[in-house]
């Protein structure tokens, strides 16, 4: 599709979302030299999360010297890969202004498919994987089409999808573990490249994470990515600009459930088949995305910050465990983080945004302005 990289005149908000635009007022995060851009970037929530990851890592290494071992570190990265991948999937949906609550249920579904379809036959690995991706795509399409074309809020659509899939998984498994699939298949989430210098082992899950991260970063720089952000920031402007909103958002949902599928494949390998595998992933992913500074309601955020958010969250839980805080506090911590992060993000983003009143674009805006007061709209929602 031919998505507009920068929205046409008459849509200041869309313009701002399309980060490539530089012909308007100054955006502090996009001016100055590289050094200055990085330092400005780090004070945005999307950049600060990387600082947070570094701080938490140091804190853990201080409390537990064993964690300085590169082998232990890379295994930690490996086991956090599924949640980081899920967070990137959730990012697409959130940045376009929607939610995907069906993620954990998709993971559980894929885990059960892996257990039942692939089973102990190595020859069924490829058809099984194919089936899982087809199922993942189908779920994403249903989520996307129902929330865009049928105009059911995505919150409800994906909640319904979550319940439907959970029921299905319960029906198939009765709620209990079934047999694990063949070790060859599980190797994707459990094994790795042996004998790597320094690290001892390079888990496949780290490789998968790296590929997904690179592909996501690339995708977000493509027209699709920019349209997606614009869709979350100002859907009206986007539809005025002639982009098909429904298709952009539907693809975000497909990407989300495909990410959940990949996370599921890794988790089957890591842990085995159990209907509770992936439980709570939708909220962990949303928390990670928010912690990564992505604004709920859409329109702002960086995909790799979402992955970093997942790492920050897992490191935080690890630190709490190391400090002897009971795991039962996990949910509470997650709840507080999500509230605090949303509150903080709302404040700090304004610092790096284009100054409020100085807007040559607005003055240059044709008649669209009166009926399309996007400026106050975006201010109003915070």
């Amino acid at each position, binding site marked *: 599709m031919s998505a507009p990289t920068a929205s046409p005149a008459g849509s200041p908000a869309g313009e701002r979302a399309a980060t490539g635009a530089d012909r308007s007022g100054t955006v502090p995060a996009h001016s100055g030299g590289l050094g200055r851009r990085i330092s400005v970037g780090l004070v945005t929530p999307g950049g600060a999360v990387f600082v947070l990851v570094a701080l938490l890592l140091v804190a853990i290494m201080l409390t*537990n010297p*064993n*964690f300085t071992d590169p082998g*232990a570190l890379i*295994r930690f990265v490996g*086991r956090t890969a599924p949640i980081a991948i899920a967070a990137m999937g959730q990012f697409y949906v959130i940045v376009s*202004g929607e*939610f995907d*609550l069906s993620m954990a249920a998709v993971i559980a579904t894929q885990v059960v498919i892996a257990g039942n379809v692939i089973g102990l036959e190595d020859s069924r690995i490829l058809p099984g994987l194919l089936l899982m991706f087809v199922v993942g795509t189908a779920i994403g399409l249903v989520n996307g089409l129902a929330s865009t074309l049928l105009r059911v809020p995505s*919150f409800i659509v994906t909640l319904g999808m979550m319940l439907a899939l959970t029921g299905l998984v*319960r029906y198939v498994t*009765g*709620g*209990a*573990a*079934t*047999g*694990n699939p063949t070790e060859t298949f599980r190797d994707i989430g*459990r094994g790795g490249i042996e004998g790597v210098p320094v690290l001892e082992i390079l888990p496949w899950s780290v490789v998968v994470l790296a590929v997904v991260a690179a592909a996501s970063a690339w995708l977000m720089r493509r027209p699709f990515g920019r349209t997606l952000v614009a869709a979350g920031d100002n859907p*009206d402007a986007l539809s005025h600009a002639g982009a098909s909103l429904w298709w952009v958002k539907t693809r975000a949902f497909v990407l989300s459930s495909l990410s959940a599928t990949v996370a599921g494949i890794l*988790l089957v390998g*890591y*842990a*085995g088949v*159990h209907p*509770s*595998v*992936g*439980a*709570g992933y939708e*909220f962990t992913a*949303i928390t990670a995305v928010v912690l990564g500074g992505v604004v*709920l*309601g859409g329109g702002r955020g960086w995909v790799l910050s979402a992955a970093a958010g997942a790492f920050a969250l897992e490191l935080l839980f*690890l630190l709490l*465990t*190391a400090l002897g805080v009971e*795991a*039962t506090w996990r*949910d*509470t911590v*997650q*709840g507080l983080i*999500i*509230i605090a992060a*949303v509150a903080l993000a709302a404040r700090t983003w304004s610092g790096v945004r284009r100054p409020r009143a100085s807007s040559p674009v607005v003055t240059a805006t044709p008649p669209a302005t009166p009926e*399309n*007061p996007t400026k*106050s*709209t*975006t201010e*109003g*929602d*915070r």
Partner: protein
Amino acid sequence: MRITHRAVKGALATAATVVLLAGCSTDSVEEPVESSGDGSSEEAGGSEEQSEFFSAEDLQTQDEQRSATFEGDESEPWLQYIDGEMTDTSEFASEGAKKVCFANASISNPWRQTGFITMNQQLEVLQDSGVISEMEVRDAQDTDETQIADIDYFINEGNCDAFVISPNSTAAMTPAVERACETGKPVIVFDRGVETDCATTFIHPIGGYAWGLDTAEFLSENLEEGDRVIALRILPGVDVLETRWAAAEQVFEENGIEAEDFFTEADPTRIKQIVTDAINSGEVNGIWMDAGDGAVAAIEAFEDAGVDYPVMTGEDEMSFLRKWEETGLTGLAPVYSNFQWRTPLLAVEKIFAGEEVPKEWVLPQTPITEDERQEFLEANEGMPDGHYAKFGGEDLPGYPDAWMDR
């Protein structure tokens, strides 16, 4: 117009997330409170959680029962019991096939699934012999409210001749069980208990304290003082699980074993992470589990970290027995006798025949040791991983296919 739309949408989305998050967290916090809410939970609070479930008297009783003599034929352990008070059932003696109504807590774990199959195969036998006409089952899906409604439905519209209840939780189910008793029909409670003795018979294996003593004593014998044990517990607040840990914790303390306990919700991902983190923070010498579901994930954590296997107690679930044999680790498989699922229907047969039944029907509960492992592995060859070795259905129709194809 648009302003409000956007603002409302953003706020709604945020609010809803937070609400759902809160809902999610209260779920796992509330459940134990419900099931443990025995009236004293208010003052018990969070810090003294232990005392709520710990009864030195019960521990003592179960400790003695471990070496008690069981009445009845050893080859039919599901009919064995410890000598004690009996219920006279002569008033129920009557001819004809009876309708049994079964209020089941859930079949959401492999232990309950295995048991439910055994129960259904036992039902077949009793239907063929004309004792039972039909068994109507309602599954409460782990929810107290649902099970209360199920029991009331049976009382009012079930047209039942006898009630079989496997309670979801102890305190919450007590009034409903009492209402069933008030109908004057036989009431059979099994597995988890309730706080009333109105039932005709309460069937259960020795119990959680015995499990905790067996397992913790085994670990203590095979470990040194000061060794570190990771205790993997499914969730807090369920009495049959809390008592296992309460007894084990006491034994560990007595023997100077450093035990750290974690809640896993039987999620293998979480089990593996917990064990991996523990290994990363220092040597782990033993693993204790309050149920064997997920034992394999715990063992895999040691394999993936490339460290020595721990001394470990799992359960008589096939996945653990197989992994135990494969790895050759020092282990014990405690048993929460799955064959108890046969007993309620056999009790129905006895009750309508007017034969007396034990008021509290305590079934044997003997762990599987390394020496016995091979025997149970061979006897259950081809059974799925979620099958329980001491399921006790070898003589029932449909064996072994009914348990194999689930």
